């Protein structure tokens, strides 16, 4: 028999999933904060990308059963790939532009 959303059998896995979303959002924020030191602009961009992931975590916790939509999961994947691209850019450009002004005027 399929459990109902309020069934204790489904509440426990849903809580674990909500915690997994929170850990993932914290991981995104942590990598953004770590990148701030070596490249403030890239770090700020990554921190900005953390916002939609955090919003998704909040949204799934509000929803009964906490199952994310395909769009939410695709957003996480795209964000990780964008962070990897930013990390590659920082790796190839050395320390990268220190400020937004340096980025705009070329450094």
């Amino acid at each position, binding site marked *: 028999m399929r459990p109902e959303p309020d069934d204790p059998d489904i509440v426990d896995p849903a809580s674990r999933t909500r915690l997994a979303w929170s850990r*993932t959002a914290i*991981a995104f924020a942590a990598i953004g904060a770590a990148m701030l030191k070596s490249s403030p602009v890239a770090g700020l961009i990554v921190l900005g990308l953390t916002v939609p992931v955090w919003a998704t975590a909040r949204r799934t916790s509000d929803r009964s059963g906490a199952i994310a939509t395909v769009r939410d999961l695709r957003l996480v994947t795209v964000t*990780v790939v964008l962070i990897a691209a930013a990390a590659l850019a920082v790796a190839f450009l050395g320390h990268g532009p220190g400020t937004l002004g340096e980025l705009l005027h070329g450094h």
Partner: protein
Amino acid sequence: MTDVGHQPDPEPAGPPAESEPDPRFTLANERTFLAWNRTALALIAAGLGIIQLLPPFHGVPFGRHAVGLPLIVLGAVIAVAAYWELNRNQTAMRRGDPLPRSVVPRLLSATIAAVAALAAAIVLLSVARKRAADSRQGGELATVGPSALGASQ
């Protein structure tokens, strides 16, 4: 009239019947996806840390990039593979099929082992080049040193 000898009509060929799986399995699939993405983020952070924070290897100018870049690329690959596997597992569960085997753990293990071997080789090469440079410098000082000292006095 009896149905003896009557063969049931074969099912029409088409996509297999699908039904929404138990939410607990869907949630477990989602948690696995999120765990892979956190692993991907950790790999990206490790790669970036190696490139940006490690001191350069003596005599191996691209050593840090050789170790760090594969980790960053692996992070991106794992994120995409996790999404692909999430969809594949969800489809298998909807059809009631057994879950397909995941390739991501093997990919992760193989790449980390290869990067570790590469890092060990770069460290050994760097140490060997540093020792060779030190002994060359020491030899030059031994031959040139006394006369150079005498000339300066």
